[in-house]
């Protein structure tokens, strides 16, 4: 039970940080910010790594392996495409 309370605590505090960190954004940065934070939400990759690496059950390992691939696409693709968007704006300026 104590673990649940600790989890809820960091969830609540991190949510407040998330609310506060986004303030005024120029409209041109809406899409890159969405894309960048989408890449960060690929953090589920860490969970996928644990699921794929532990060998308690074959089903779990297979599910974990697929999740590793999908989450890595999310992470790598996300950061690269955000970089491309930002590079495009820079050329225009």
């Amino acid at each position, binding site marked *: *039970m104590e*673990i*649940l309370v600790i*989890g809820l605590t*960091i*969830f*609540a505090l*991190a*949510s407040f*940080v*998330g*609310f506060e*960190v*986004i303030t*005024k*954004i*120029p409209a041109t940065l*809406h*899409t890159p*910010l*969405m*894309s*960048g*934070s*989408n*890449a*960060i*939400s*690929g*953090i*589920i*990759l*860490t*969970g*996928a*790594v*644990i699921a794929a*690496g532990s*060998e*308690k*059950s074959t*089903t779990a390992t297979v*599910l*974990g392996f*697929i*999740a590793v*691939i*999908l*989450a*890595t*696409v*999310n*992470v*790598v*693709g996300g*950061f690269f*495409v955000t*970089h491309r*968007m930002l590079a495009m704006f*820079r050329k225009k300026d």
Partner: protein
Amino acid sequence: MSNEALDAFINFAYLIAAIFFIVGLKGLTHPRTAVRGNYLGGTGMLIAVVATLLHRDIVDPKLIFAGIAIGAVIGGVLAVKIDMKVVPQLVATFNGFGGIASVFVAGAEAVRDTESEVVATQTLVALVASGIIGAVTFWGSLVAIGKFSELDFLDRLKFPVGQWLNAFLALLLLLPAAWCINGTQPVMAYWLVVLVASILGVSLVVRIGGADMPVVVALLNSLSGLAAAATGFVLQNNILIITGALVGASGLILTQIMCRAMNRTLVSVLFTSFGTDGSSSQDDA
């Protein structure tokens, strides 16, 4: 290193990664620091993943490296080669992949846990949340891709019962959810939850107009963060909870800002066709 020391080390690395994510997100909101913000986010991710490889449950990392290699090639090639005109579809695709990855990770943990021990109720609640949010994110993103690509058949999919179908599906979802949390057969109930949530994900987004899709993708991005946080409660993993909450909250703010920029409200985007399909005639009921 003892298991306790290892856990402490991993959690410390997670703290560093979380700081990178926060500073990175902050950087992405200003034109001058945006590129650096993106680099910081990537660095945080690298730290988090490398630290996770030290996790005590990991027996053999070969499969992990293979998966990461495959995913990195697919993601890298897509991101670098694809025409900039289809970038909205690409972002929606990546987002959907993150959502469905949460569904699979939580599903894997359900299989792992229930084979060996009785699972705590709070873990099962988190499991159900991961399944619902992850599946809605995935299928919602797929429909958003179709809308961006102007696939006409999607518009014909607007069911006559409209918003009532969504309400019905949401209620229907309670059955397998309760069955899962009850804990007798959580794995099978979990996949039923995912199935119903998938249909709900399609029916929620299919009725929203193509012009509002950027806002919908921003909202789905926020949801994929929440799915990761829910999975964090299943795995009791700090970095998933922190980062998921961070993306969930910041994504919601961004969604609101984007709505305002388009002179729309989030409610009008999500429920705009409410009343145009005959369902408003029941006002007096």
